Structures are given as structure tokens and as C-alpha cells.
């Protein structure tokens, strides 16, 4: 499905990955327009319910990205995010969702190029998987 434009939402912390995405901008690095960012103070703030909701609202893929281990502005929020992520990943797998629709990464304020790289490779990965329909259909049924 080469023309498929996946909808991807990225949950990022303001100190590292958001700043890294800003740096990609100031460096004029070009990347795919499919990823939209939501800014959080810290990855520790990211309630993983947001990730499930993303799929219900029509996302085909989700990125979570924050500061590298030991670089958290709040000292340890990213470690809590990582622990939650490990549990969440298992849960998603158990639910029968393809975990390749999820991406967890560390991008620092200095890594503009890495951010562009993650966006491009993950967009390609989700594009290969195609649109994510299952959860959305369930959510639609739920509404009715």
C-alpha cells in the first residue's frame, strides 16, 4: 500500500525529545509529515491509557520518546515510563495488537537527526503494516 499515509501520534517530553524535534526544525532536516507531537512535561506523565485511546481515535501507530536514561530533567520520570512501557507492551501483545505499531525511544535535545530518522523509519514500518482497523471498529461499535 504505497499511497497509504499512516496517522501517527508521538507522546514526547518537553525537555529532550520535543527540543530534539525543534532542533531537527532549526537544522532544516526533512522528514515524513505523518507524525504529530503531543508535548508532556515528562515521559513519566504519559498515562498509557492515552496510547490505547490514540488507536481508538484512529491512529495507526504511536511513538513514546523522552530523555535518555539518567538524563531526565526530573531525575527519574523516564525510568518510570520505561517500566510502564514494559508492562504495557506485554498487555498490548496479549490483546492481540501488533506491537510493531508502537515505538519507544530516547531522543535528546541534541539529537535532531535521530528524531528525523525515527519518524521516517517508524512511518515506513507502519506504512508496511497498513491501516489499523480492528480497535477502531470496536470503538465504533461501542459508540452505537
Amino acid at each position, binding site marked *: 500500500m504505497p499511497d497509504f499515509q499512516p496517522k501517527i501520534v508521538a507522546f514526547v517530553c518537553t525537555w529532550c525529545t520535543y527540543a530534539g524535534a525543534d532542533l531537527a526544525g532549526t537544522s532544516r532536516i*526533512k522528514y515524513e509529515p505523518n507524525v504529530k507531537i*503531543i508535548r508532556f512535561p*515528562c515521559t513519566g506523565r504519559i498515562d498509557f491509557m492515552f496510547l490505547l*485511546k490514540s488507536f481508538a*481515535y484512529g491512529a495507526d501507530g504511536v511513538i513514546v520518546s523522552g530523555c535518555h536514561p539518567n538524563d531526565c530533567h526530573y531525575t527519574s520520570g523516564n525510568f518510570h515510563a520505561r517500566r510502564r512501557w514494559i508492562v504495557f507492551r506485554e498487555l498490548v501483545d496479549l490483546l492481540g495488537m501488533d506491537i510493531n505499531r508502537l515505538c519507544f525511544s530516547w531522543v535528546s535535545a541534541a539529537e535532531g537527526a535521530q528524531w528525523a530518522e525515527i519518524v521516517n523509519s517508524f512511518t515506513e514500518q507502519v506504512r508496511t503494516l497498513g491501516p489499523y482497523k480492528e480497535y477502531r471498529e470496536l470503538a465504533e461499535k461501542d459508540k452505537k
Partner: protein
Amino acid sequence: MEKPRTGVYICHCGTNIAKMVDVQAIAEDMKDTVNVIITRDYKYMCSDPGQDQIIKDIKEFNLNRIVVAACSPRIHELTFRKALQKAGLNPYLFQMANIREHVSWVHTDRAKATKKARALVSAAINRVNYHEPLIERSVDINPATLIIGGGISGITAALEIADAGKKIFLIEKSHKLGGHTAEIDLTYPYFYSAQQLIKPLIERVKNNKNIELFLETEVKEISGYIGNFETIISSKNTDKIPCLPAGRKLTFGNIIVAIGLSPMDPSPLKNYGYGKFPDVITSSEFENMLLSGNIIKKNGNIPENIAIIHCVGSRNNDYHDYCSRICCTVALKYANQLRSALPKANIYELYADMRSMSKGCEELYTETSRKNIMFLMFDQRNDLPEIKKGNDKSAPLIIEMNEKLSGETIEVPADMVILMTAMEARKSAKEVAHSTGVSLCGNHFFIEKHPKLDPVATTTGGVYIVGGCQSPKDIPDSVSQARAAAARILGVIVRGTAKVSATAAYINSSLCCGCQMCLSICPYTAITYDEEKKVSVVNEVLCQGCGTCVALCRPKAINIYGCSHIQMMTELSALLLSD
């Protein structure tokens, strides 16, 4: 809560946004969104007329929510919040959509970029409906300041603050003060003695009763936040000058990072043969010779053919992409000092581009070029000179190079070669960045809060960066930054309080089940348990607003101002459902 009346402003940023995003179309499309009263697009929203328009509209249309789609909120969120404040509106009834750094500068398809920008603007408009007026908290400032690094920058800042009567803890890793300035002979462009500059400053530091000096001391962990930091220091040195028993606790309100930089080891650049040829030396080694007053080769003889090679490791894709900024002028200084010491010697400057840009430095270049010094240009990107063994006794080294201006391949005879090595970040930068909570750029220099408007502050409140640790710089620039940071800190000390973000967690006690899981996860011990009511309570002064407890809380009893469940959920749904 009164019904939201939202004003939406889409910035062109000159052509920065407008050329890749159809700003007019977005302004038009958003007109019919629920609660939107007015939409506008404008050349530069951050300019005075742009802000005045917002203020005027707030008054005229009785707006109570503002959305600006422009650059990154990390740049202008504060600007627009102040505009709201001016119009009498709480500054937190505002949301920004980043359509420059995250859209127009990174995408190439105008239709797709516009679609993405529209989704971001729509998300901001929907989210702002749930914004509440917030009150910025204020914290008391401990008037003491911690300065890490006792070079010219650290010393200058210490004296500036201490002379105003405020306490300084000055921490230096080595056994002496003065940093690089204490290790150089003359300064450019006016040939003042560096020793005469630094020695009186060091004396003043030692005699200043407000400065407590810790030599051979390193800072490991710093805890706290603006106004209220603390650290425990331990020193190897307990007998020399005023060092103190191991493990003393220091408390302070502000931090200046002044750890400086290091000269690069040129050994990896094999073409220059450093380490292989004993008379190929680094600029620091030559500076030592100048200080000792003895310009001699390894065999004890006086050199006759001296070559100075620029850009060793700087502006070089394999080592450091950046320009080290001071080496060209230092090289000119060397040529002058060599000419005075050895009137008959042949002196060669092998340069890539001559960048002697500070005040008085271009003049030094002109003056130097009249002193019978040979200037030869090489191609830094593709064609570096190579040092080889020569046969001649007066020229045991031969530098083979393609001279760029003449286009000829030449051999420069030399018996001493000085390598102008790059200036690089300290090895300890990462550790200091971690303990002070400041980010590093890709080259491991510290990142300032704003590259143009706030060059000595950092995104961590109460932490300032000065001198070479921010980027390579010379003495006057380091001193300017040091005094700037000192002035900023004195300003905060005089006020006695500092505003901190209004983003803080709060607990709905009727939902709290008293599990106390949030207590153990809070990095600031801002949550306590009320034994009587059997619920957790947040201390809003200690809370830094990370929100980790919010995501953890099972019964969803904890929420956070500025990043609440409803705000984030609304932003998410609008972002995905709008396209």
C-alpha cells in the same frame, strides 16, 4: 467557568511558515470551530504589532482564550503569555501550536504540511477550552551561589557576586585557580600579560571573606531546585588553603557552571605526525615555552624554520565540525612573539581561512602580515597538509601542501611545527550536565536557554552557564558572560523570590484510596500522607510538575495543572479526529 471565547492567530513568520503552510486557509477554516470568535493570520505574531493585535482583540471581542500557531513554544510561549497578562487575562489561558520547527521547516509537500498544521491548530483550539487560570508559585531564594570551575569565568563571576556582599562557594577540580588563563603568556590582540591579569584576581578571591574556596574538589550530585539547591562535597585536599572536612553539605540558591574546555589531542590526525616527530608540538606546549622564555627544539637548539598550522581538528568532519574561534588569532599572536624573539627565523602560517574576528584582531592580522611572515592557504575540507621527514639539517621536517591561492604543490621546510589544536568540551561535561540538570549539544557544550536572547541562562531555573563550557571563546567573551550571569543572579537574590512554573500536581482527596504509591515515586518528596484523613497530599512548593504520580495513580485521584487528563485527552482526540 465562563464560556470560552477564543482568538486564533496564525503566524507567517515572514515566509518561514507561509511558504510551506497555507496560513490563510487555516485561519479561514478555523473560523467555524466551536468557541472561536476570531481568527487572524499575520506576518510576525511575536512582533510588537502582532502582540498588540492580540491585546486589542482580547479587549474588543472580550476574548478569554488565545491560540497562537507559530514557532516552538520553547521560544515564544512566554512572550505571548506576557501579552495576555498585559491585556488582563491569565497567561495560562493560552496554547501554542508549533507549525514552524515541527512543520514548515521539516516538510517539503505544501498540501501535507498544511494538513498537519491544521490538525495541530485544531488540537490547540480544542485543548484551550479546558485551560484554567493558574497562579505562578514563588519560592524563596537562598542568597548563596555555587560556582563550578575556577578559571577566568568562574573567578570573575565569584568576585562580582561576592563584592556585592553575597556568599560564594567556588569549587575547583585542580589544585590551583586560574584555568587556562594562568597557563598562557601574552593575550591577543594587545599583548597584555595573562599572568598580570589573573594573579591579582586570584589574590582577591583568596582574600574575599564572602568566597569559600574548595580546591581539588568535585561536585557529584546536586538536589533541589531554583533558590534551594544542596550538595554534599568531599575534597581530597584537606591541608592546603581553605579546604574542609570531607562530606560537608552546602546549600545555595543558584549555580554557575564554568568548567571551561580542553585542547584536543592531535594524535589521531596522522598527517601531522604528532607523537611521531618530537618537534611537532601543540599550541599549549608552545605556550609553555613562551611562558618559560625558552623557544627551543627537543635537541636544545633554537628553531630557524617554524610553521604554525591552523584548524587542527576544528572545521573537520572527522573531528569537530565547529570553528574553535580563538586559534587563528592565537596563531597570529605566536607569529608576532616568534618574530620578536627570533628576528631571523622563517615563519610560516598555514591556514584554511583567517578568522581573526574580535575587536582589534583584524588589525592584528594586518599588522602581522607586514612582519615578513609567509601566509599559505590550504583546503581544510579536502586537502590537509602532510608533515614528512626531511633530509636537510636545517629542515628535518617537510610539510607537503597544495597551496590554494597559487594552485601549486609546495614543500615547506621546518624544524618546528606548532599545531593549533581544536578546543573541545571537557570530559567531565556530561557528569556536570547530569548533576546540574542542563542539556548538552552534540559537541558536548552546554545548551543555553535561548541562543540569542538568553545566552547565559539554561532551561533549568537557577542554573547558568558561562565561558568555554558553552562554546569556545576568548577571555573578553568569557568575562562578559561571567558578569552577565552574576548580574542575573544578583537580580534574583535582591528580589528574594523567584517565580516557578504553575504546573503542579494536586490530589482530589475524595478519590484518593490512600495506597501511598505516589509517595515512593515522587523524585522531590513533595507528596506526604495525611494519617488523619488517610489520603496523600501534594506540597505545591516542592512539586516540580513532572506528572509521574499523575500517570501512576490508579483511582485517577491525582491531576496536574497545565497538563490535566481532560486537556491532554482533548488535544489527542482533536489531533487525530480532525483529519
